[in-house]
């Protein structure tokens, strides 16, 4: 059962369409991430859910109640908690007053407020700092204040707008897990916005990849990584080699095709589920760097085997990256770090047909 339902949402700023009639459902208790490059409409979508932007068309249903079609529901009446990118912790209020601000508006009893505040302070690890002013806190601590403020009122929905992007790398990684376990424990339905694919993969139950105002793919991290819907998604999530080509004919049953490219008459590729591609279609034969095998000797029985030269070698600690030139095409390959190959060396690339995808 969908807890948040976004129907046909359309929002534009003057002439620029920010959100182009998207449909999206978030299940109860789920953490859904809106992932995409800047300007893709992810933050605007989030702000529409919060009620901070008024969309031109469409509706947003939260817990069965329409936010737009039956009169615009003000952000203050939506029962949401939100963590802003720059924390938006009020600098003129102590930590404790930041946190209990919303509770006071709800007119809870003093004792109840005290109790709830104490709980959430412990939860986010801020107990003992309640009488500090925000300027006396570190960035990470301010982020925790923002999180506590969003969680303390038991919101129906938690919205997080790139909450970790202002923190340094180490802290960011730490907080990812912390937020994930916290939100899961509380069972709050949440929408998380980020442009960091690694963050999205760690934190979310499902990811909606957005591009130019549209949701281009919705699925779990694994689904999106293994079966990207198009070239944009494949490129945005992880690294992918793209070789431009043209479909020649079907081969070995209906889910495999041959592709003609600049360096080869036929590369065997797997079709994604339920796609029909006619011969002559312009496509990209695509393979992830870690799926490319390398061999020192040619093995004649294998298909998709091509000769190339190592142009660059990059040592990345746990593995090596080779940039290998096949004719005029550069293929990136990721291999274990102990392989002895050097720049200038010739070798054979194996583009595993099962892992070689056909993307538009």
């Amino acid at each position: 059962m969908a807890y948040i339902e976004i129907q046909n949402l359309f929002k534009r700023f003057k002439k620029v369409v920010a959100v182009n009639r998207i449909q999206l459902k978030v299940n109860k208790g789920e953490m859904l991430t809106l992932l995409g490059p800047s300007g893709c409409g992810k933050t605007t979508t989030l702000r529409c859910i919060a009620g901070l932007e008024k969309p031109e068309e469409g509706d947003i249903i939260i817990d069965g109640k329409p936010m737009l079609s039956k009169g615009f529901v003000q952000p203050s009446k939506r029962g949401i908690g939100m963590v802003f990118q720059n924390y938006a912790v009020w600098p003129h209020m102590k930590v404790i007053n930041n946190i209990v601000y919303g509770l006071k508006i709800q007119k809870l009893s003093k004792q109840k407020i005290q109790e709830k505040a104490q709980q959430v302070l412990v939860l986010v690890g801020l107990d003992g700092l309640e009488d500090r002013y925000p300027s006396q806190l570190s960035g990470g601590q301010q982020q925790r204040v923002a999180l506590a403020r969003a969680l303390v009122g038991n919101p129906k929905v938690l919205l997080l707008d790139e909450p970790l992007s202002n923190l340094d790398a180490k802290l960011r990684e730490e907080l990812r897990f912390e937020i994930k376990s916290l939100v899961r424990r509380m069972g709050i339905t949440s929408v998380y916005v980020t442009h960091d694919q690694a963050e999205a993969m760690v934190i979310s139950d499902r990811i909606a990849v957005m591009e130019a105002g549209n949701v281009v793919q919705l699925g779990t991290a694994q689904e999106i990584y293994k079966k990207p819907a198009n070239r944009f998604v494949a490129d945005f999530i992880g690294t992918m080699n793209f070789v431009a080509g043209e479909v020649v004919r079907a081969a070995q049953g209906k889910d495999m095709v041959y592709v003609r490219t600049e360096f080869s008459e036929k590369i065997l590729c797997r079709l994604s589920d339920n796609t029909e591609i006619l011969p002559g279609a312009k496509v990209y034969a695509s393979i992830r760097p870690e799926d490319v095998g390398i061999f020192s000797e040619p093995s004649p029985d294998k298909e998709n085997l091509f000769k190339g030269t190592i142009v660059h070698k990059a040592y990345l600690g746990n593995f090596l990256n080779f940039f290998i030139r096949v004719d005029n095409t550069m293929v990136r390959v990721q291999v274990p770090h102990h392989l002895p190959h050097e720049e200038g060396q010739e070798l054979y690339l194996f583009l595993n047909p099962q892992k070689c995808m056909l993307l538009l």
Partner: protein
Amino acid sequence: MSRGNISLAAFLWLVIAFLVLYPLSILVVESFKIAETGGWGIGNYLEFFQDAYYLKTFGNTLLLSAMVLLTTTVFGVPLAYILARYRHWGKTVFTALILLPIVLPAFAGVFAFIIFFGKYGTVNLLLMEIGLIEKPVNFIYGLHGLVFIQSLHMLPFIVLGLSAGFTNIDPSFEEAAEVEGASGFRRFFTITLPLCTPSYLAGAVLVFLWPFTDWLTPLILGQVDLLPSVSYINISYHFTDMHRKYMGIVAVVVSSVVCISLFLLARWWVEKKKYTGLSKGTTSEGRVIEPSMWVKSGAYVYMVLIAILVLLIPIVLGLSAFSRRWTFEVFPTYWTLENFRLILLESPGLIKNSFLFSGIALIFGIAFGLPVAYLIVRTRVPGKDALDFVITLMLAFPGIAIGVSYILAFWKGIPLAHYWIIMPLALFARRLPYFLRMAHSSYLQLDPSLEEASEVSGAGKIRTFFYISLPLLLKGVLVGVVMFFIMAFQEISTAVFLYKGGWETLPIGIYLNWHRGMEFGIAAAMAFLMIVITFILLLIVSRIGGGVLKAAWGAGEN
């Protein structure tokens, strides 16, 4: 874009139309009236640009402006550099002293320097006493004195702009030049100074326009062949001679056009030249250097000299205020409270009027300025930029233009000038940009997500404004409030055209005492009183600003 915002914008436009656009258009209309025939035409303008006297006046004003700008620049550049870059003791004290003329009434300086540097003033008497000179030297009466007094008054605008520029330059620009091998003076003239031109120009244009506004200083120094003084004399002394009156109005319009054009030109140029660095996270302090012993001592001597000149104003006025008939003496010998007794007993109304009019103007200013700042920064209401533009233009308008246009516009058709409310209204219109600028910039610094976070937490718009926006705006707005009040408190160029018996403010009282009976003692005592009041206000704002609010913002933020 809600309906509320649109009606708010419409209301604010109405106020501006009534208090700014209407009177100023009347001013322009009047300038086309021909005295002899009672008809209309461009005759007055033709005469203005053909008459040798008016042309000379125009030329004199431009010359004075250029000289004042040159003087403030030559003295201001090193001063700004020292204040912004050198690590030295007493930075706060010197900065405060050098910026002091901003809050001192312009006419206070004239009186003080006449007493000190006049024909038989302290300096001349001292020099004659020790036998260095036989006849008094003319230090002050004439163009050179005018340049000196106006320059000292306007110096802060150059120093303020430039030192902010010097502080805000991304240090890496200069470091890059240093690495490239440009050192010392070369780096300063090729990198630092050019990068500061936008901030310099913002102050420079105000300096250049000052001689087009200040009619009183030239009048006191006997240099009346300048546009504002001529306008003042033509309009308030010769109002029965219709032709001279219209020529005065033409002079006001010409000054206004010059001021507005230069102001817009500078603004356009600053916009075009705005340099932005790509780097993030530069130090807030900027580049601070530790100069050598000699340079440092030189810098101190220089700062002390200028600080002494500034300090002369309150000191000389103070001495004069507590003495009787300080003439032909190096220092006053007869101490008395007579001057203050006269002010408090015989004309206590002046002080009351000053507070009343400035206070009411301030209330108008806040009630009008905050909504305008809100509209400009937070909404997309059509016409808001034009509103901002019109109000900002008021910065450039000579005070005389507003005074004259108010008396023309609100005498007959809409007879508002018969009631005292015209005084605060005129002050409000003239000083509005000061408050709006500050409200505007504090609104800009207020991150919208702080307000959004409140709304998401369940607070309505009103609650959000009072609990979140207002407290956060307060620091910036408070400075604007006090500046507005001080500026309104000192205002004379506009008020002098509008006051009637019983409506005199302190500045007008000062002017009248000088003008009618050469009552220097009383005028000086009034000026001293104004300085004291201004000081108390500044003290209060720095106390509130520094004490209560500082705790909330902490040391980390600027």
